[in-house]
């Protein structure tokens, strides 16, 4: 239905363009005056005023219709015999009504639900009629008003351009809305989570076993000891430790390799090697992380295990070492690429001054170039750390699931992102503390990476200003 309405709007607005264009020419010829803008601007003016308000109405209507219908149905239910039941149950009844209406309901429906489904259908029909009427009035009304303005020889170009600018601003606000959406969705569930689980138990607890909270009726009021036990099941310290540990292994691979390759490419390599080497290292950044995960889980993991077995070491097949090593390789280009830029930005005069004093090339790099580039390099390393913390697929496929608090790289550990995926893939119970825990973890992840990125970006920017 929406599609039909949109097609109508587009066809109408398209014809409005030609209508407006020819009309202004005619009017100008008859009344013998000069138009204030080129004729096609009058066409644009008319077609924009015809289409934009109507499209806005369709969009807002489609977004908000389900909420309004739901509200109407539920308030109807509240007034009837179901007045005394709580919100979650009402929601369930509403879902049943919807299922019955769309023919996906299985089993015998109660009279109440049948009545509700009938009501639901009538609301939908009503909403549809109202929408059509509203869209038609908007299209006709706005077109008429715009046409009136055209015949008065308005400043059509300025009108069109101001609409264009509004559209531009709306587009750039989308990014802000995305951030707001992220914060909103994370906060809502996290607040529910922290109303059940003590914030400090989550942040400092040592035991992570969310499956304890899975099967639980939310309507039962818990005793104090049960509450404490539930709280104790969500201690996120093992996850933080695992995430940090794997990131540490990754960084101990990525920082030396990335930094040395950047130094070599920037300071030693000839232009041919530079042209070839830089893109090849950046290929590492273009490989999808799921491919790294596959490699870590099926090649590196078993390889490390077989080496460990021959040495008589007890190696888990999902060792933190395998995930960390492969993640380190993935992160190399993030370190090397930005460090390369930073090193290149160090003014040549600093190097020449050093050479003039008799320093060798490596001494110049170590004692002059690197200290000068240090803020930028630190910025690039911080960005890489935030990558490592937020990386998902490698750890999902190659790291373990059990939350061990360990510093043995051959043991298996788990990370924040692994747990989010494990909790949210498959069936979800949105009232359960387990599901909400994933959003609380997501919030933690978001805040930590945001802080890291913010520091890194401001350090890098400050550094750029220094040498620009």
């Amino acid at each position, binding site marked *: 239905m929406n599609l039909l309405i949109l097609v109508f709007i587009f066809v109408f607005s398209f014809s409005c363009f030609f209508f407006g264009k020819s009309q202004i020419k005619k009017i100008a010829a008859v009344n013998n005056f000069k138009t204030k803008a080129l004729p096609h601007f009058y066409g644009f003016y008319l077609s924009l005023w015809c289409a934009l308000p109507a499209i806005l109405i369709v969009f807002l209507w489609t977004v908000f219709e389900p909420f309004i219908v739901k509200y109407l149905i539920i308030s109807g239910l509240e007034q009837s015999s179901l007045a005394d039941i709580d919100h979650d149950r009402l929601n369930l009844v509403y879902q049943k009504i919807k299922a019955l209406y769309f023919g996906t309901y299985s089993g015998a429906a109660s009279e109440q639900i049948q009545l509700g489904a009938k009501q639901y259908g009538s609301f939908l029909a009503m909403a549809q009629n109202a929408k059509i009427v509203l869209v038609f009035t908007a299209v006709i009304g706005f077109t008429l008003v715009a046409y009136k303005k055209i015949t008065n020889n308005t400043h059509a170009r300025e009108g069109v351009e101001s609409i264009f600018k509004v559209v531009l601003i709306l587009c750039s606000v989308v990014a802000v809305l995305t951030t707001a959406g992220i914060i909103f969705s994370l906060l809502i569930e996290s607040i529910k989570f922290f109303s059940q689980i003590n914030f400090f138990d989550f942040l400092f607890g040592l035991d992570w076993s969310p499956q304890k909270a899975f099967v639980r009726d939310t309507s039962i009021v818990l005793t104090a000891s049960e509450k404490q036990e539930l709280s104790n099941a969500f201690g996120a310290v093992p996850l933080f430790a695992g995430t940090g540990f794997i990131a540490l292994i990754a960084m101990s691979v990525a920082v030396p390799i990335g930094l040395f390759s950047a130094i*070599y490419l920037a300071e030693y390599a000839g232009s041919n090697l530079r042209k070839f080497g830089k893109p*090849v290292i950046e290929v590492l950044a273009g490989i999808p992380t799921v491919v790294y995960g*596959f490699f870590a889980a*099926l090649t590196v993991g078993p390889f490390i295990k077989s080496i460990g077995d021959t040495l008589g070491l007890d190696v888990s097949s999902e060792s933190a070492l395998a995930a960390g090593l492969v993640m380190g390789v993935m992160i190399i280009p993030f370190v090397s690429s930005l460090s390369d830029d930073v090193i290149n930005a160090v003014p040549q005069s600093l190097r020449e001054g050093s050479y003039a004093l008799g320093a060798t090339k490596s001494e110049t790099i170590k004692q002059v170039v690197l200290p000068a580039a240090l803020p930028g390099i630190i910025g690039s390393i911080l960005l890489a750390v935030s990558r490592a913390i937020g990386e998902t697929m490698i750890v999902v*496929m190659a790291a373990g699931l059990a939350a061990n608090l360990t510093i043995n790289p051959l043991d298996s550990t788990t990370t924040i992102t692994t747990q989010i995926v494990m909790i949210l893939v498959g069936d979800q119970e949105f009232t359960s503390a387990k599901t909400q825990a994933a959003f609380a973890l997501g919030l933690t992840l978001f805040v930590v990476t945001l802080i890291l990125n913010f520091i890194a*970006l401001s350090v890098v920017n400050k550094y750029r200003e220094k040498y620009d």
Partner: protein
Amino acid sequence: MTKEQRLQKRYSAEKRFKWYGIISICMALLFVALLVTKVLSEGTSAFVKSTIEIKLNFDQTALNLPEKPTTEDLNAIDFYSFAIDQILKTYPTSNRDEEKELIKLFTTDFEFEVKDFFLANTNLLNQTVSFKITASSDLDQLHKGNYAKNISEDRRKISNYQLKIYDHFIQNNKITKVFNVYFFTNGDSRNPEIAGIGGAMLGSFFSILVCLIISFPIALLAAVYLEEFAPKNKFTDFIEININNLAAVPSIVFGLLGLGILLNVFELPRSTSLVGGITLALMTLPRIIIPCRASLKAVPPSIREAALAVGASKVQSVIHHVVPLAMPGTLSGTIIGLAQALGETAPLLLIGMVAFVVQVPANPLDPSASLPIQVYLWSESAERGFVEKTSATIMILLGFLIIMNSIAVYARQKFEKKWI
């Protein structure tokens, strides 16, 4: 220490330092090479499949057909028992267990292969033709040499009796390898021999299409605003910081956004490429805005001033001159952003695109998987037949990424003007 010794020491330090750099680069290159060889060596065999040639005798009485069969009669044929009869003729069996083992060497879909073949060639009635039936995954792996034959029977997927049948087939040249069409047309399956990435490819295509339609116009217009029109004030700074930070937010957080807002608040259908595409679009948006802004910035101010000087308005100078000149840069930035979105897995896991989907999706509202998700799903499965399929899927995925990135690089080098 003499002067010479000191100098010697400094020079060797210099050499060592240089070698660190060479070794680092070599290690990075080595890893790329290792990964590519691993994927290539494992994956290429998935593009062919083993087939077993059998004789099909489309005898009128065996098919239970009347004298002049109508289309309905043809459709009502019990191809299952017919195909089993024909399969049992390929090797002499003495009891039911042996029959079962023989049948297990063929794909579970043999009935449909025979049916499709016959219904497409109904003129073969009362004739005997030889027909290649897809072999089961176990026989396929055995034929490709991925199963060890010389270990004890209980550790093998293929029994001693099946090995005997296999040798018999080999001696009579019954087993041939053909190009595996199923791999490109079929959806997922529990049986490796008929599982394919057709569904996943279409799912990826739909989500990237949705992602492109949403993210490119919004990103371009946002970049135009920020670069050309935005006044320098707190609000503009806020938007800029926001975009830069959003580009570095971990992708899984966008999955949580999709789950929390798109699925739970707006109740869009789960597991569909529409939701996947919207989620990817939100993630890709800042990553496209940044290169778009850079390429707009690269257009020299003299172009704008010339347009303004001949009486164009600010909007006209931007739409008619600046944006077209920046197009190569914006397009290549968009393609690179889309390539990243194509390889993205984590956000799609959270919005349920990880479901087991046999049906090939017909539109963005059908449940579907995507290529990286298919890699994830198959790599978790223990069967040997899926290992080569995983690598082959990675090859296809990397192939698409290479093509997209080369187009981006080519477009930039070919069409971008160098301003001096």
